[in-house]
């Protein structure tokens, strides 16, 4: 294996010419043929519209499907898409939606209100992880070819944003029962999945939908999304200029990514810290004691954690709501300043002079350096931590109420109601012990229907209350990065790890 320099250059050039379109050096490509290659940390679990997930997988579905509404980059508001107009009735339980009449699926089936109704109901009755969000959907019916009527069991302030996410995705009814529906989507979206070139789980290739109704919004002819299981190979792909843009899951590689000429576009998406689920003390009476929960909040040197675990790429916070939210209160961040002495005192006051023993699950999904530090710091204030590795079963074990508390990172949705339904309400997925507090219930009911100042006030009150009650022990909000090369622009999507596909554009 001996190369002369010239021979090597020639071979390299030949290779580039042949594989050219896949490479990121797309400045050489003319306007006529643009391609975009993205790096992701997750593959889609399924393309079947009624079982779609969101978050890191959203990008795949925005490529092949259209949703009824478009999420605004602020993450709270919605814009017209397949739906052009929408109105609630007075008590916000009936939503009337006007749909476009010029859309057909790639298999030729026309898009109608009847199809939209079917898709919505199928989603509600499917097994999507997002399904719980639209359980308030009572019925969806087609009033005429372009008018859809949606009935809700009760008012849901986040329902419109859900229609802009997984629940609103529209699949051709002809594909509903096709055997390969999970891997061969038929939608009306801007791109078509090229199944022949796709390696499921690793590399997804899309081509522009030639008959797309909104052709002007499609900026690339070809789209490739590669999946990287570990940070090192993602870094290698970026450094090797194999990608135009990528969502980075592990911030430790960022200095090298930046060094390779990528722009770091960050947003403080998730909060990281301890989730104190067992607020009633079912598994461990100590957790039912507010003083112990507060002691846990005081015991952790969150600034140090931020530096070591989040590598400084985070912002300190004691709240689960986003900074721009009406619930957010700057002053609450001083509620639990690092104070081990006070924490020790609180543990004693709570009636545990000999300390408390807690069992905390560990998982390889989180940074390794976290666990010894956590054990150390809680141990210093008299809270002995037993670590139990649960491998891939972490979420199942948490949902199965096997652990009263856990380190976790949860997405802070921009829409407050969405966040409440995910973390705080008695039925929320991440209120794993389904803990209920009359005051919280009352505030949530107010927020459901109130508007304006009344709503904002209730939100603030709710936030203050759960911080005081130490429902959580948030340490900081992690900055999540979407990195782009010099030829690519992006507008991030508040509250989601991935920007909207149409917000990734070539630089002029």
């Amino acid at each position: 294996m001996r190369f002369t320099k010239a021979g090597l250059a020639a071979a390299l050039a030949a290779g580039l010419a042949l594989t050219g379109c896949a490479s990121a050096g797309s400045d050489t490509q003319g306007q006529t043929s643009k391609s975009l290659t993205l790096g992701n940390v997750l593959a889609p679990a399924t393309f079947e519209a009624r079982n779609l997930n969101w978050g890191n997988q959203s990008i795949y579905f925005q490529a092949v499907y259209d949703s009824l509404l478009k999420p605004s980059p602020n993450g709270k508001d919605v814009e017209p898409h397949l739906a052009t107009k929408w109105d609630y009735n007075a008590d916000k339980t009936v939503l009337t939606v006007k749909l476009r009449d010029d859309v057909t699926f790639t298999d030729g089936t026309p898009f109608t209100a009847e199809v939209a109704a079917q898709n919505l109901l199928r989603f509600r009755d499917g097994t999507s992880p997002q399904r719980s969000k639209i359980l308030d959907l009572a019925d969806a019916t087609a009033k005429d070819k372009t008018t859809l009527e949606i009935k809700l069991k009760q008012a849901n302030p986040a329902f419109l944003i859900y229609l802009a996410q997984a629940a609103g995705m529209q699949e051709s009814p002809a594909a509903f029962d096709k055997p390969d529906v999970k891997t061969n989507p038929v939608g009306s979206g801007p791109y078509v999945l090229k199944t022949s070139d796709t390696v499921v789980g690793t590399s997804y290739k899309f081509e522009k939908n030639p008959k797309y109704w909104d052709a002007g919004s499609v900026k690339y002819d070809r789209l490739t999304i590669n999946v990287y299981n570990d940070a090192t190979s993602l870094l290698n792909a970026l450094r090797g200029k194999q990608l135009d843009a990528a969502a980075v899951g592990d911030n430790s590689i960022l200095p090298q990514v930046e060094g390779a000429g990528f722009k770091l576009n960050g947003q403080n998406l998730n909060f990281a810290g301890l989730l104190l689920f067992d607020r009633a003390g079912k598994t461990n009476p100590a957790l039912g004691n507010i003083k112990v929960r507060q002691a846990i909040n005081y015991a952790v040197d969150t600034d140090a954690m931020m530096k070591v675990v989040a590598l400084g790429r985070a912002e300190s916070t004691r709240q689960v709501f986003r900074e721009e939210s009406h619930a957010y209160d700057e002053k609450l961040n001083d509620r639990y300043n690092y104070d081990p002495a006070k924490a020790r005192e609180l543990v004693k006051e709570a009636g545990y002079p000999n300390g408390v023993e807690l069992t905390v699950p560990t998982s390889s999904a989180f940074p390794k350096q976290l666990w010894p530090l956590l054990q150390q710091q809680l141990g210093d204030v008299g809270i002995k931590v037993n670590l139990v590795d649960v491998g891939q079963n972490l979420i199942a074990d948490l949902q199965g109420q096997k652990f009263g508390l856990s380190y976790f990172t949860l997405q802070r949705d921009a829409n407050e109601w969405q966040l409440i339904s995910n973390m705080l309400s008695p039925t929320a997925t991440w209120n794993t012990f389904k803990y209920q507090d009359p005051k919280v219930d009352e505030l949530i009911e107010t927020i459901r229907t109130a508007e304006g100042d009344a709503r904002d006030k209730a939100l603030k009150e709710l936030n203050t209350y759960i911080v005081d009650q130490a429902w959580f022990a948030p340490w900081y909000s992690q900055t999540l990065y979407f990195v782009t090369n010099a030829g690519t622009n992006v507008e991030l999507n508040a509250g989601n790890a991935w920007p909207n596909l149409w917000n990734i554009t070539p630089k002029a």
Partner: protein
Amino acid sequence: MITFIVRRLLTGLVLLAAITTLGFTLLYLGGGDIARKILGENADEQTVALKAQELGLDRPVFAQYGDWVVNALGGDLGASWFSGQPVAAAILSRLAVTLSLVTGAVVLIAIISVTLGVLAATKREWIDRVAQVIALLGFAIPNFLFAVALVLLFALTLGWFDPTGYVQFTTSPSGWAKTVTLPVVALALGGIAAITQQVRGSVIDALRNDYVRTLRSRGIPARRVILKHVLRNAAGPALAVLAVYFVGLMGGAVIVEQVFAIPGLGQVAVQATTQGDIPLVMGLLVATGIIVIVFNLLVDLAQGWLNPKVRLS
């Protein structure tokens, strides 16, 4: 000959049955809440229960295994729980990738090991030392360290090869070469070390055979005797070791594919096993089992060709 092959294939089938039963039991014991794992952190308990029902996970293990066996015998290996892709398609599309890595490594190992081993055995001087050093390094450097070093040097610093991914040969031969070269080298190092030693040893052994002197006494040049007669006789033992090593290469591919983000069987194996994607893992066990069985059969047939004395009847 035919009866031999048939008998071997039947033994293989029994073996395959044992492997799959073992695999299924293991996976079931360690499965955990698979429906939850599929749906992730956002799903509520009710949806998880629905999903479990949909996959038939609420049925007794024996019934599930029975279903799997019946379907598998009918050629249907089911679909992955985590991607929805049919298992047969998932494995076939990745098999080519892994096989091109493993075959590449076997070819590389064979060429380098035979050259180096024969030189070391016949010249016995500095080249022997070189072979020894390579063997030592090959054994002492874990292949993932070597792989990472290769990426850093040849892909990221020199830019000669692609650091990640895989391009199909049919799509672009040069792209294929740029993606497979480093993984093949990384995969081959350990094998080169082991097989070179073996070739050296069996060539030294074969050189001590009386017929070597006799053939040379007939005027056949030493080089020709070594390349034709000694090598053929030394190939048997080396091939036996290579056969054993082949299973190791399939395992080594797991790590190498991880480092280079190559969509092969190894990558899918790590993912599927850690996730608990039982249909996919079972498919993988069947596929690797068949590959190993067929490979060993081929090795035995080759042994018969190399050594007429054990030629199979």
